[in-house]
């Protein structure tokens, strides 16, 4: 009796299981096929439902808090390393001899750079997401002061006399000059677009400030990125040198004599159709060699090879004897070593037209690159020991400091900073995002066009299937998980599809990601790319009077004459909070003659101030131009009834838009206060 009951029960559940399993599996298959846009992705619920959770218990369970060393400085005696741990909002004090972390000093949000005072008593750390600089007393390992800066402080330089701190405000594109004694900002210059790197000449007279984004130029014109040169004695900008056809100039280094400065850079080929990758037709990488004197030479030289590219050059340092330069190429986990004497010889013996041609010569690097040294994942900031014998490398996605002998040019050890030992799925995804290994000849990676996981400000000709002109303004990847579909034409319904087969076919021109990697990359993109706070235009959720007036215009249903604005032509209809997109396609009459007939995916507007140029082909250089130059027919909202004051108010409001998490946290703070 018992046996028969058991058989019946088992039979019942087996039949029930089969009844549920087959349709369920079929449903799951369909669901996964839709999400991934392929029909053979493994049916693994965890791929999405565990690793793409942005918050909550599961998210905490599967993710880890990493250190992500970004930049570093070495004490004069060489005994200490001071490492900026970007994701931990901390400065790590490291014993260079024993390879031990001695202290972890909390600083502001997303620290970027560290610089030490000449007497070694203080460290200054720029906090890019806090708009300030932490002043640290190194004897007590305590933050003793906080200096206010412009928006997005990144690179730092101290004047030769130590009286002034130059802070490069990367988001507001300024140079803040801070009196170290008083802590007051003495003046603020405009720099190039998205500046970050800075270097003071050995004689203390000239300060270089490198920019990452190109100045905005109409599509078809060669991009140009500003190198800003400051006379430190007068605290005046003496030159704004445009570096043609190059951008993402992250950092600079002077030779010990100061006659040359070397700057990392990328040369994008955004003006040619993206139909070929081979031979550098998408991106090439190199250095800008400049004579810093007024109207001095500017030469661009590649660090690539004909069949190998050294993507995403970030930092550069030069040995005290002026013989070697080291360049970290974050996209290929490599340090390239430059023989500076060879570089000088090449420049001296080449005619001007030859030097100009070298900027596209993939073979020329053999004349001055003497070694490639592998590192851990994502090498970023570099620092030399005082005697120049050791090179320290901040391996951002390894949570380690790599050590390289500058004499025999071999790895000489590693310092484990003590980050989580587990590499999570999202962390692996970030490594993939930042690594060019999945692109033909390692020519580029996701980070190349999406620096800081944002966008590079360029318009590319993503040749359409008919090889026509298909101009595409690069879009930000910040917090895009909840804003499908993707691409301007909205053809990709999920991040999986966006980064899957299409990605390899159209861009990387090599095998697509395997599903494990694709899962990881997707997990990272969906969960790991938060927006910076909008400290410049909306630091605390309290809108200015102008922004409030602009908000009313944004949400209005009647024009200035009292006429009803059709619902589908109101700002708020398509740009719905919290991401300011209704996730639908829209017609705004901005199609160019060369565009395929299509609707546009309504873009999200959070932190929109940080994404010029605007519209799908980047034709609008500023937010104002969307309507003053390209909104004459009132198809992209009704604007022609507005006064200039009202347009200013609207633009002020748009600039105030920020990510939902900041809105929520400010609301919560207000409630808590009540």
């Amino acid at each position, binding site marked *: 009796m018992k046996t028969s009951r058991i058989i019946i029960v088992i039979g019942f559940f087996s039949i029930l299981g089969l009844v549920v399993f087959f349709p369920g599996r079929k449903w799951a298959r369909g669901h996964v096929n839709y999400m991934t846009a392929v029909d053979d992705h493994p049916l693994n619920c965890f791929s999405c439902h565990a690793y793409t959770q942005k918050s909550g218990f599961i998210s905490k369970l599967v993710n880890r808090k990493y250190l992500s060393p970004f930049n570093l400085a070495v004490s004069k005696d060489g005994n200490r390393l001071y490492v900026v741990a970007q994701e931990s909002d901390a400065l790590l004090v490291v014993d260079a001899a024993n390879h031990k972390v001695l202290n972890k000093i909390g600083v502001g949000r997303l620290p970027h750079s560290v610089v030490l005072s000449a007497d070694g008593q203080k460290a200054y750390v720029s906090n890019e997401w806090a708009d300030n600089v932490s002043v640290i007393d190194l004897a007590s390992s305590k933050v003793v002061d906080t200096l206010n800066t*412009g928006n997005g402080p990144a690179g730092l330089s101290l004047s030769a006399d130590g009286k002034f701190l130059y802070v490069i405000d990367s988001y*507001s594109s*300024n140079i803040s000059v801070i009196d170290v004694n008083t802590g007051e900002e003495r*003046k*603020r*210059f*405009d720099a190039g677009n998205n500046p970050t790197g800075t270097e003071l000449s050995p004689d203390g007279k000239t300060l270089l400030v490198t920019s990452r984004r190109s100045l905005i130029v109409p599509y078809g014109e060669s991009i140009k990125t*500003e190198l*800003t*040169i400051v006379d430190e004695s007068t605290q*005046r*900008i*003496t*030159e*704004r040198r*445009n570096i043609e056809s190059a951008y993402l100039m992250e950092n600079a280094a002077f030779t010990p004599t100061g006659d040359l400065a070397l700057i990392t850079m990328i040369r994008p080929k955004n003006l040619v159709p993206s139909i070929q990758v081979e031979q550098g037709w998408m991106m090439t990488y190199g250095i800008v060699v400049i004579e810093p004197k007024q109207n001095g030479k500017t030469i661009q030289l590649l660090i690539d090879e004909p069949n190998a590219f050294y993507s995403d050059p970030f930092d550069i340092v030069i040995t005290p004897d002026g013989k070697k330069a080291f360049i970290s190429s974050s996209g290929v986990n490599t340090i390239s070593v430059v023989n500076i004497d060879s570089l000088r010889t090449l420049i001296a013996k080449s005619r001007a037209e030859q030097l100009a041609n070298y900027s596209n010569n993939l073979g020329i690097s053999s004349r001055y690159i003497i070694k490639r040294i592998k590192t851990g994942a994502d090498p970023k900031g570099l620092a030399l020991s005082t005697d120049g014998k050791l090179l320290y490398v901040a391996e951002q996605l390894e949570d380690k400091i790599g050590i390289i002998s500058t004499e025999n040019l071999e790895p000489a050890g590693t310092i484990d900073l003590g980050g989580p030992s587990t590499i999570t799925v999202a962390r692996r995804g970030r490594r993939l995002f930042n690594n060019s290994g999945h692109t033909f000849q390692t020519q580029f990676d996701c980070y190349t066009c999406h620096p800081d996981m944002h966008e590079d400000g360029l318009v590319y000709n993503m040749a359409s299937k008919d090889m026509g002109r298909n101009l595409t303004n690069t879009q930000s990847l910040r917090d895009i998980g909840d804003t499908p579909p993707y691409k301007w034409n909205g053809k990709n319904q999920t991040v999986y599809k966006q980064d899957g087969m299409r990605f390899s076919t159209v861009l990387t021109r090599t095998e697509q990601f395997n599903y494990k990697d694709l899962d990881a990359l997707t997990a990272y993109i969906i969960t790991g790319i938060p927006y910076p706070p909008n400290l*410049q*235009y909306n630091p605390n959720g309290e809108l200015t009077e*102008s922004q409030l007036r602009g908000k009313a215009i944004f949400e209005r249903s009647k024009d200035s004459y009292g006429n009803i604005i059709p619902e589908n032509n109101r700002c708020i209809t398509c740009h719905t909070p919290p991401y300011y997109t209704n996730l639908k396609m829209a017609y705004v009459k901005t199609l160019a003659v060369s565009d395929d007939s299509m609707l546009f995916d309504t873009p999200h507007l959070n932190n929109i101030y940080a994404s010029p140029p605007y519209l799908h082909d980047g034709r609008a*250089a*500023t937010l*104002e*131009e969307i309507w*003053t*130059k390209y909104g004459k027919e009132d198809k992209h909202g009704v604007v022609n009834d507005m*006064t*200039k*004051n009202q347009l*200013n108010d609207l*633009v*002020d409001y748009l600039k105030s838009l920020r990510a939902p998490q900041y809105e929520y946290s400010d609301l919560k703070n207000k409630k808590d206060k009540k």
Partner: protein
Amino acid sequence: MRNILRKNLQTSITMILCGICSVLVINSQPSAGKRTAEVKSKDNTNAIPVYGHWKNFTTKDGLPNNHAYCVRIDGKRVLVGTHEGMAVYEDGKWTNYTTKDGLAHNGVVSIDVSELTGDVWIGTLGGLTRWSAGKFETFNQLNSGLPNDLVYCVYCDGKDIWTATGGGAGHYDTYSKQWEIFTEKNAPMHEPWTYGVSAGDGKVYIAAWGGGIIEYTYKTKQFKDYTDPDGEMEIDLLPDDGPVHDITTGTAYADGMLWVSSYFGFCSYDGTHWKGYFDHDSGLASNFINFVRAKGPVVFICSDKGLSSTNGKSWVTYKKNDNNSDGLTIIKNYARNDDSTVVHTTKEIPSSPSIAHNFIIGVDADDNYLWVATEGGVSRGELLK
């Protein structure tokens, strides 16, 4: 455009004044004693710089055009705005810049230099241009929050850049990169047309067409307007009761004194008292005043009939003869006698050559030189020791 407007206005106003008010004005003209009652000096030595040894520059010397609208001294160089671009005088040579180099428009009507950054801000008839370390960048009403492309005046006040435009006054904060527009909608203006702007001691003074002077206080973000209390458009009925006219063309602030120009006279304000000056009761060359610039205690007044300068007591006017290139430097000193009557002494010094033209729109001075932008070129005078 500004010239045409002014000339038309000048003609009509002159006719009105001549036809309606001349008798009244002449008959009611107060004596010098009445109009200069505050003058205390007895020794006739009210220090005011006098310039001479004029050197005139025209297209023959390298200017792009002889219609010079503005001039600004920037250290060792001099920047001149003309009808056909900006000219820079440095090391004895002129270098010209136009829209081909990046200027917003070739009609350059105002130039100022930021003491903070050294950037040159250029007001043109087609937008505002920043010239920084050799690079031009343009702000216009289409690509930025600039109120209007007719930028009659630009003024750098630390990190703040102020513009007086045909569509209101604009304020650009170079730190926050945000614009504000002030018009009759949000400020006590009669209409959005503004001609001049200056600042000092935490306040901004906007010369608003028909609205007198609009004072903006940074700290409170509040406005206050100063208009002609007598309300008369043709004459200044009650002396020293306020601004001489509601149609103002420029303001200048220095040493705690606000100077205001109009097409109907000139006035000053020390924070308590207003004082009016006219061509019939002071050393003023003409009541039709285009521009004003203050340097310490001295103010330079650009009119249609020559250049005047004053410290409120002494006057120096530079005029060119109509029929040749020579002219006069007219010095008037006001003093009070023991019986409290005020007398003035006049001294005329011939100059050969004189300033290039009597229609003057711009002026700037440093320790050694006075530069004047005229309808007939640019003039440079040396400080006479």
